[in-house]
């Protein structure tokens, strides 16, 4: 069994407390890390091949390097705990079971990017995780791990825990920033990118919970150790959320070199009830679907990209032969229609339209040409929007129909 890094303490009762966290070595190396030069930390993170685990898979150290050199004035670190990608639930586990791991990661990362005020944006529905995490923040303040001159290092960090109010789009980093600023979660135009002009007009680094949880380990154990855990393009382990028709749904922390087949059949116990695998969504609902014979792929960013899909948030949704793919697409299309923020035209108008078409198809009222209409609309709309939400919707629209066209056609009256 490979080493577990982020989830190593999950089995311990009270793993969320400062006491247990410290007993298992937490905050131990922090003083030394705070004495390191920020540039050294950034360099280490770059060399570790840590890639963002929120969805886009962008190299974390590279993103940190985008903050304008010589910038005067505040820089903000924003933790994306708005977990909302269907099929994903790992950040909830981290908030509930290892909140101090996230806090330590924030202290190190904030030091690296020169931020003295960090925000944690927790989705509004996550009430228990928010309570547990907020309590941990208080513990950290009380123990001198947050606030002015942490452990006498001269490094300051304040943490504000901010709750969302129900909107998937606030997981998109600029939608999150709008929401953090007290507005609707409308994503912002890029350029400017958040690292240049983000929250409250200041350079801002948005990172996923899990990404940041990795940072202290990387800095303490070294870039090469972390890089060696993964593949050529991506270092480390990550937490796979496996759900659907498997025997043991749950969170599995594994090296990113694990294959989808091994994840499903070995770690998650294979398909439940002895049925046959039909399809898998490997990276949250926005990732294009894979068929049963496309699962011999490694679960790193590049492996899944080469397979025509994406690692996304590593939410793995497993469907067996009893699942109707058109019905699944209808459910997914309803989600995107419901969650489109409405800001830009292609996404606002076509998510609703495509949902209406898929619903009619499932209800047996589809028209012959409509499968092609959906494909055409989705292909043309892809890449024309303000944010990647719409491309995330296009992934399933196109892949479900292309890979399971027969099933759709069977529902359309002749």
């Amino acid at each position: 069994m490979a080493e577990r890094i982020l989830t190593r303490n999950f089995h311990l009762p009270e793993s969320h407390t400062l006491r247990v966290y410290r007993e298992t070595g937490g905050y131990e190396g922090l003083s030394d890390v705070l004495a390191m030069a920020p540039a050294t930390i950034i360099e280490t993170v770059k060399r570790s091949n840590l890639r963002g685990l929120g969805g886009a898979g962008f190299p974390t150290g590279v993103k940190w390097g985008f903050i304008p050199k010589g910038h005067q004035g505040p820089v903000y670190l924003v933790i994306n705990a708005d977990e909302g990608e269907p099929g994903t639930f790992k950040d909830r586990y981290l908030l509930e079971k290892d909140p101090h791991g996230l806090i330590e990661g924030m202290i190190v990362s904030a030091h690296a990017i020169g931020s003295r005020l960090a925000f944690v944006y927790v989705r509004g529905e996550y009430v228990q995780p928010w309570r547990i995490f907020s309590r941990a923040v208080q513990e950290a303040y009380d123990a001198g791990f947050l606030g002015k001159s942490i452990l006498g290092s001269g490094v300051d960090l304040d943490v504000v825990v901010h709750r969302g109010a129900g909107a998937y789009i606030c997981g998109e980093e600029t939608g999150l920033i709008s929401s953090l600023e007290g507005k609707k979660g409308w994503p912002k135009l890029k350029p400017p990118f958040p690292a240049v002009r983000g929250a409250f007009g200041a350079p801002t680094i948005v990172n996923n919970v899990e990404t940041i949880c990795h940072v202290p380990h990387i800095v303490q154990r070294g870039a090469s150790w972390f890089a060696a855990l993964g593949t050529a393009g991506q270092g480390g382990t990550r937490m796979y959320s496996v759900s659907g028709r498997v025997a043991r749904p749950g969170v599995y922390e594994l090296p990113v070199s694990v294959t989808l087949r091994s994840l499903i059949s070995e770690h998650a116990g294979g398909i439940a009830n002895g049925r046959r695998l039909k399809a898998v969504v490997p990276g949250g609902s926005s990732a294009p679907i894979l068929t049963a014979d496309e699962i011999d792929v490694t679960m790193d960013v590049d492996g899944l990209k080469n397979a025509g899909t994406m690692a996304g948030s590593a939410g793995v949704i497993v469907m067996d032969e009893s699942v109707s793919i058109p019905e699944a697409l209808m459910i997914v299309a309803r989600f995107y229609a419901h969650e489109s923020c409405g800001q830009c035209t292609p996404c606002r108008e076509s998510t609703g339209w495509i949902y209406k078409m898929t619903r009619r198809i499932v209800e047996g009222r589809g028209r012959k040409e409509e499968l092609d209409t959906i494909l055409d609309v989705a292909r043309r709309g892809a890449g024309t929007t303000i944010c990647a939400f719409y491309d995330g919707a296009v992934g399933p629209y196109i892949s479900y129909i292309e890979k399971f066209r027969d099933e759709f056609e069977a529902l359309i009256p002749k």
Partner: protein
Amino acid sequence: MSRPAAVQFTAGELALVRRLQALYPDKRAALLPVLQLVQDTFGYISLEAEEYVAGLFDLPPAHVHEVVTFYTLFFQEPKGRHVVSVCHNLTCHLEGAPTVLAHLRMRLGVDVGATTADGRVTLLAVECLCACEMAPMLQVDDRYEGNLTPAKIDRILEGLE
């Protein structure tokens, strides 16, 4: 709990509002937390409350209304004493969300989006709550409940005053 009288914070609540506003580089950032406070205090966010909050933030009321109508967790109408939100996204759907919803509709005698006549429960169907490992699941007030069966749903309902 709800306090239905005219929308007006107490001195203590106003102090909390100011504390929240001071947490951020721009006080507007406290709008979501303060709306949450309004909802916790008054049960829902009325138009009157939106105007009141607009005043606390020096914002045009239309901008507060934009925010209130954008997020699903803000209620513009009084809700039940408990809110039961059933996840109907992909994994939960595959694992039986339609059955869960049908069972709840039958037990509560209301449709999705409605509140029981006695004001006890508001029933909602919502998008992914990110607890797919326990599908089918629902949220009842602050709590997640998963691996639902009709018997478990009945037990959950029994626990609601």
